[in-house]
Structure formats: structure tokens, C-alpha cells
């Protein structure tokens, strides 16, 4: 969908047209869900965030500034909804959060027995992503998954461009270190991981 078509849909949806709203949702729900899923690691949370973000966007479409990209606006609202949700559901202690990550990593390892090595790699990468600080994780996801330019990420996250780059570079090095460390750990999964990543 090009920008002109998108603006047309937005205008119609702002005027109360259900079909246009539905087209907008279908065009963007996948990318927003992917973004939130990557930074939260939790499918149920992602669904809730996507729903709430879209509802807020659709009920406030008349405030949309057509000079900007719709997806950027949507992601900004989704991000805000997610962080608000995190504030409400903040874990009692850091150990709780660490346990959550550990569960993810263990789940990834358990799935090695299955033949779906690519899915295993995705889970593994997701588990390692969750070990990153949230700022770094978000920057990696926006840059590598959504291919946003660094300037846009800077605008979206409110961080200076230099900080975004620095987060991105550190995050990559950490991910590489962690993943390679896991791959080198002797075990059944080593060969499959290596095979999958080659």
C-alpha cells in the first residue's frame, strides 16, 4: 500500500468507515505484533498491546498528522501502551524477570529435540534478545526486523542518534557473544544450532 492509498484509507476511517479501518488494521497488525512480541517476548501481552494501540489510533484518527508515516505513529502508540502495561504489571523483583528469561531460554533448548531447527534458532535468538537491556533490544528489533533508519529510531525512542548507534553496536556484540557461547557449550543441540545458522 502506498502512502496515497494509506492516507485515503485514513481519511475514510476517520470519517467512520469500518471497511477502511479494517484494511488499515490488516495492513499493519502483523508488523506491530512482531515489534511488540520481540520487545516483550510474550504473545498474550503483544496481542493486548496491539489491540489497545489500534483502538486508540482508530478512535483518534482525526489527530493523525499526514506529514508523518502512519506506521511510525502506530508504533509510537504501541510502544507507549506496552510500557504503560509494563508499569502496571512490573515484576516484584529482578529475580522474577530473570526467571522469565530463563524459562524462555530453557524452552528454546527443549525444542532442540524437534526437527524444526529454524524455529529453534528464532526462539534462541528471542531468548538472547530478552537478556538485552530493553533500550538495546528495541533498537535491534527496529533496525534489523523493521529496517527503520537510525534517525527514525532516534525520533521514535527519543534517544540521540549517537546513543541509538551505540546501543545497536553493543547489542550486536553481546548477542554474538552469548549465542556463540551457547553454541560452543557441549550438548546435543550444538550441531543443530551450527547447522541452522550456517
Amino acid at each position, binding site marked *: 500500500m502506498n502512502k496515497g492509498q494509506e492516507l485515503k484509507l485514513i481519511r475514510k476511517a476517520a470519517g467512520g468507515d469500518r471497511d477502511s479501518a479494517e484494511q488499515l488494521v490488516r495492513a499493519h497488525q502483523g508488523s506491530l505484533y512482531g515489534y511488540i512480541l520481540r520487545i516483550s517476548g510474550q504473545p498474550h501481552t503483544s496481542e493486548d498491546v496491539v489491540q489497545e494501540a489500534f483502538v486508540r489510533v482508530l478512535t483518534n484518527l482525526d489527530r493523525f498528522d499526514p506529514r508523518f508515516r502512519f506506521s511510525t505513529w502506530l508504533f509510537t502508540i504501541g510502544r507507549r501502551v506496552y510500557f504503560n502495561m509494563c508499569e502496571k504489571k512490573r515484576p516484584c523483583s529482578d529475580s522474577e524477570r530473570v526467571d522469565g528469561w530463563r524459562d524462555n531460554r530453557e524452552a528454546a533448548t527443549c525444542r532442540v529435540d524437534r526437527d524444526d531447527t529454524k524455529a529453534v534458532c528464532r526462539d534462541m535468538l528471542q531468548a538472547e534478545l530478552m537478556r538485552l537491556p530493553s533500550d538495546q533490544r528495541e533498537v535491534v528489533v527496529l533496525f534489523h526486523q523493521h529496517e527503520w533508519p537510525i534517525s527514525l529510531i532516534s525520533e521514535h525512542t527519543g534517544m540521540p542518534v549517537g546513543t541509538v548507534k551505540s546501543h545497536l553496536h553493543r547489542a550486536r556484540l553481546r548477542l554474538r557473544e552469548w549465542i556463540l557461547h551457547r553454541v560452543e557449550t557441549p550438548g546435543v543441540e550444538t550441531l543443530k544450532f*551450527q547447522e541452522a545458522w550456517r
Partner: protein
Amino acid sequence: MKSRSGSGIGSGMGGGKPSKDDGRAHRIRDRLMNECLDSIVGGDAGMARAMLRASGEVAPGADRDVAEMRRLLKPLTKVAAAPDLAFRILAETHRRRPFLPSFARHKISVWRVALAASFLGLITGGYLISESGGSGQGLGEALGSEVALASVSPAVAIQSSVFESALVEPSIAVSLSPSLRRPLLALGEAGSLTPARRWGVSGGTGDSEVSVAGGERNAGGMASEDWGVGVGVGVGVGIGAIASRVGASSDGLELGGSSMLGRPISLPTSSLLWSDGANTSLLKTNPLPACLIDSHIGERVGGRVGGPAFGRPVMRWVNPGFGTTFQGTFGIPAERGFGPSAGPGLPSLPRLDLDSLLAPK
């Protein structure tokens, strides 16, 4: 164990005690790898290749680092399968702000509204007669119908209207504003006090708002100040907007502007600031056609209207622009019991005579 410059997975965990030079070389390779990846993902693979070629001697094996990192991050580019949430989203959206059927979304351009308003104003209200008013002085009093156009953006509303300048005794107006978005009727009331100062108050229930307006107008002068403050409070929404109105008026014509602090209320009805004639201030970008019926109880003197009661339906169309909403308002006077009492020398325009129309044949 392979050295770092080896190939493939696992090559990054080099053994042995790293020397100072090794550490420097690693840093260079890491930095190069990051810069190359930034370029590649940013769509400038040529730049990445050039950097790798240029650094072949300083950082041998950097190309393998880049390739390895790309492999590691490749799963990120696969977008996770998303559940279809469209139904849930649309249902919730509809609950909070209902979608409109196609007939209600029909947009009418502001020019057509203006034309229609002018036409209807002429045939129904452009008269120069007054029965009980008595004075009938001035052209402003002769224009009985309201024609208003307003350009409303979220921040600024500019409105012009033709109104009846003669001031009235305290009166009460009730407005009904059936909303397509919300089924409740909005009830409002407005009053005008004292010839020199006017206060308009409209309050409501359901999806209406409360607005307060104060102002001062010198009705007899050729031009005067008209100022006021409107406060819109939406039920269930909280404070919607604080609007200040500044305008100048002369007999028969008012030009006014409103600026708002905060956002307009996200409710379908709008402020009705009732001044001493027909003056409606609409401060809400309201993307739907609505019908407003004003019914007055009380006696108005000195102008076009007389008698104990009269009704005046006002149709309002809103053309939802993008960031700006244009709307047109016009009124159809439906007064009863008029008589010819226009001032001497004033032209007379045709008007509907409801009494003769409604009278049994």
C-alpha cells in the same frame, strides 16, 4: 579450538591469552563489522563492500564477521506469524466510537452548504417583518435567519454568521441534538441576560457538554467587541476544551474567532453559545451530520420574533476535513403569528407564511 579468524560458527571464541594488539585488532574488526551492518541494512551495501576492501590488511577476516553476524540476526527478519486481531480491534473500536453507516458519512462540501443555507435563509427567513417587536429598526434586525459557516480545526475555530442584532429579554433555549454516534439526546439550555451583556449557558446530559459564555456587545453600535470564554465539559471525558472567543460585530454581521486550549471534546455535540440573536459556536470537529433543533420559550422583542414561543430548527452539516472540519449551519425560522412591521423604506423579501400554510383549507 579455532582462532577468531577461522570460519563459521564458533570461530569467535578464540583461545589463548589475548595480547594488546589482539585486543586492538578485535576492536577494529568489531567496529568495522558494525559499520558494515549499518550500511547493509541501511541499503548501502556498496559502502560496506568498499569498507571491507579498504580494511583488508588492517582487519583481515572482517568480512567473515559480517557474514556471521548477518546469519545470527537473520531470524529477526522473519516476521512472527501474527494472529488476526482485526475483529477484536474493530469491535472494541466500535464500542468506544461507533462506525457510521455510509449515508451518515456522506460529505457535503462547505460551499454547497453555504449555498443551501443562503437559499433557505432567503426563502424562509429573509424577511423584513416583525409583529410584536415593534422597533424594526436597522437592516440587522431584518435578517431573520442564521447563516453560519465555521472552519474548525482542533485548535482554532473561525466563524462568521449573520445574526439578528437586537437584544432580547432573558429567554431560555432548549436544543436537541440527536447523535448518530451516540443514541442519547443532548439537551441544552441557553439564556441571554440584559441587553448590554450576554451570558450563554448550555448544559446537557448524555453526550452533550456544558458550555458557558460571557460577552459584551453594544447592539446599537456599528461595531463592538464580543468576547467570551467557553468551557466544554464532556460527560465521561472530563474537561474537553477551554475556548476563548474574540470577535467583532456590527449590525447584522458577526465575525468571530475562537482559540482553544487543550483538545476539543471527543463528543459529537458542540458548544452552543447563544448570543442575542442567532449565533452558534461550534468548536468540535464533528465528522457527522447532525440535526439541532432550537426551541425558545419566552418573549423576544425588538426583532423578528414575537409571541410566546417559537421554534427554529437548525440543520448542521459537517464536512470532515483532514485536520480541519468545515461546517455550515443555517436556521429555518418557524415562527408563528407575524405581521408586517418592517421599518419604512426597508426592502421586503418573500418568506414562508406558516399560518397560511398550516391553516385548514
